[in-house]
């Protein structure tokens, strides 16, 4: 918020990132530091934190208190759910999905990761890689986060020793090579003292790379969106039924991939009918094209029966249409996954039902190995499953498209969201 100019603000882009770390890795302190040093904290918020710090008797102002939202958390001193934070610099607006690190809350981490462009994973310099570090990195990879930044934190407690940083970096590189993350970075920091977070500080002149803030502000994210495969899940049919727009029949949705232009041929899935794009509305304005992740309304040359849940795609580049789904699953609910159980399912704008045909394997997310002889999927477990759906879905692989490649399962009795699936 350093820049007050109106013009600059209208030309910023948006970076969503998650933060993950083990208990006491200093995650809340890091977020507090980013907010504080980027001047995103207001006086009344700081005052409230000062009051709370004094009540706790922790001595200095505890920046971690800025982010701990709910009363139960304040009492226990831990973060228990996903909380969203916002700050902006003159270059970018940031949305942080702040998720807890301990094992029973894998589901929150997965939730936060699902929309993130970047993951910050904190590692305590004194402890090096922990089981949870591997788990966080694996989840970032599984959820297709394009950029992962390992912050080796608490460098002040290891005398800002370069050798400590280099050793941890090497170990993390070995582990990350097994994962599907495109871009991995390493930064030595002290969230508490502020070194290499926003300011470089003077304690680690041996480190030549960017500070965390510089990286967040400059990392290239425009290339992360799929602008190749044309995908338009129909969300809602707009029919004004007024004299002025008597025959208007528009298909509203959010572009999930590619670019759609007026005059482009499209195919409707699953019906297979073809037509041509007649017009595109972005908001209330006629446009020549729309692209991911824009919301738009499309009209077609031909009158075809299209409703919510259908997908408009490029005829020469189609997703797979079928009722058999092979997916990685992350289970969120206390009631374990039931093989042969039936669940409601949401995939893009399509509502369907499915049966879990089999659990192919369960994963040990600390070692990245398959668990032998145990296929019970309980809360916070990750595994691979085969589903059979009641209606055909138009699917892409998750690593190709995070929107058309993802789905959630819902318990039909309780209506709770019980699982996230990534199509493989």
């Amino acid at each position, binding site marked *: 918020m350093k820049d007050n100019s109106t013009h600059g603000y209208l030309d910023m882009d948006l970076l969503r990132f998650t933060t993950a770390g083990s208990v006491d890795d200093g995650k809340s302190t890091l977020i507090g530091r980013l907010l504080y040093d980027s001047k995103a904290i207001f006086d009344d918020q700081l005052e*409230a934190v000062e009051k709370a710090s004094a009540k706790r008797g922790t001595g200095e102002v505890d920046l971690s208190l800025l982010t701990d939202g709910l009363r139960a958390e304040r009492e226990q001193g831990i973060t228990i759910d996903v909380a969203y934070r916002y700050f902006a610099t003159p270059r970018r607006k940031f949305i942080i999905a702040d998720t807890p690190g301990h094992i029973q809350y894998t589901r*929150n981490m997965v939730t936060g990761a699902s929309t993130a462009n970047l993951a910050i994973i904190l590692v305590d310099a004194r402890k090096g890689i922990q089981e949870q570090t591997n788990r966080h990195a694996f989840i970032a990879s599984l959820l297709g986060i394009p950029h992962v930044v390992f912050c080796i934190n608490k460098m002040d407690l290891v005398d800002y020793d370069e050798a400590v940083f280099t050793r941890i970096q090497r170990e993390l590189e070995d582990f990350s090579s097994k994962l599907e993350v495109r871009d991995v970075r390493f930064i030595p920091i002290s969230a508490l003292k502020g070194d290499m977070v926003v300011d470089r500080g003077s304690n680690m002149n041996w480190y030549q790379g960017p500070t965390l803030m510089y990286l967040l502000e400059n990392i290239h994210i425009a290339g992360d969106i799929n602008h190749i495969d044309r995908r338009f899940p129909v969300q809602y049919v*707009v029919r004004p039924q007024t004299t002025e727009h008597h025959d208007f029949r528009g298909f509203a949705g959010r572009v999930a991939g590619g670019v759609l232009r007026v005059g482009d041929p499209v195919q409707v899935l699953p019906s297979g009918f073809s037509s041509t794009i007649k017009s595109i509305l972005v908001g209330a304005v006629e446009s020549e094209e729309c692209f991911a992740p824009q919301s738009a309304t499309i009209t077609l040359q031909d009158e075809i029966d299209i409703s919510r849940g259908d997908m408009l795609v490029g005829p020469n580049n189609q997703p797979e249409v079928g009722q058999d789904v092979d997916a990685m699953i992350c289970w969120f609910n206390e009631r374990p996954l039931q093989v042969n159980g039936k669940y409601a399912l949401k995939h893009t704008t399509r509502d369907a039902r499915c049966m879990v045909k089999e659990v192919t394997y369960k994963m040990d997310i600390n070692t990245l190995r398959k668990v032998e002889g145990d296929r019970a999927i309980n809360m916070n477990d990750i595994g691979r499953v085969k589903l059979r759906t009641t209606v055909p879905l138009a699917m892409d692989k998750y690593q190709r498209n995070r929107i058309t490649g993802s789905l959630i399962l819902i318990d039909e009795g309780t209506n709770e969201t019980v699982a996230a699936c990534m199509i493989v």
Partner: protein
Amino acid sequence: MHSYRLTHLKELESESIHILREVAAQFENPALLFSGGKDSIVCFHLARKAFFPAKVPFPLVHIDTGHNFEETMAFRDKLVAEHGVRLIVGSVQESIDQGKVTEETGFYASRNKLQTVTLLDTIEANKIDCAIGGGRRDEEKARAKERVFSHRDDFGQWDPKNQRPELWNLYNGRKRPGEHFRAFPISNWTEMDVWQYILLENIPIPSIYFSHEREVFLRDGVIYANSPFMNLKPEEKPFRKQVRFRTIGDMSCTGAVDSPAASLEEIITEVASSRVTERGSRQDDKRSEAAMEDRKKEGYF
């Protein structure tokens, strides 16, 4: 090659439109909670875009505390007439008259907390299954955790520990009879985003957001508009001053700021250099550190 890039405001707009359409598709009888404040005005503007060229397919609901700024009411009525939307009014005065709630007394008496009962009654009487609100996660710590599609049990209560995980852009609006949802399409917007968007889109807002002279008085360091709804202490002497409002709520709990900002550009400059949050001038949040969380659990906006 052409650069396919969205500015953050356009990306937020796209996300909000997606959410509004999802509400219209998943619920039978949604409604937009409309206070006449900038956040609900932006929500309505987004809804117009989402369903264009059709009309916004749901009514507006105004929970009327009876302690309104005149300017806000005039603005509301004009907007409703211009866009031909249906307006449902839930009256706190009626809830008081029916004995459902008891008016607070004393110098700090406010109808803010009473609104919850009226809101839940209005939702039930009109069989609203999803109430769309202009709440933002940056406003307050408890809001930071709330889902975009936020489930309410049959008492209208929010259970922060038992929220459904919300992934990608898949929103689970399934519910049992008697339960309802709140949906927050501008969850991810900040105060600054809202102002910039109002400027970008040239959206009309009530005049009291801009600097004007009015009769005010000072209480606990906060400037309040003087009105028949306020019980002034003997030492509180009304005086005239150039002020504007950063948020619009019930007159009894909305503080004004000492500001000369008379245009959107000036407001934005002021917001950017401000050192207190917009809720810092809201008396309702100051009652305790967990004030918002308590009200939300009971079914507040």
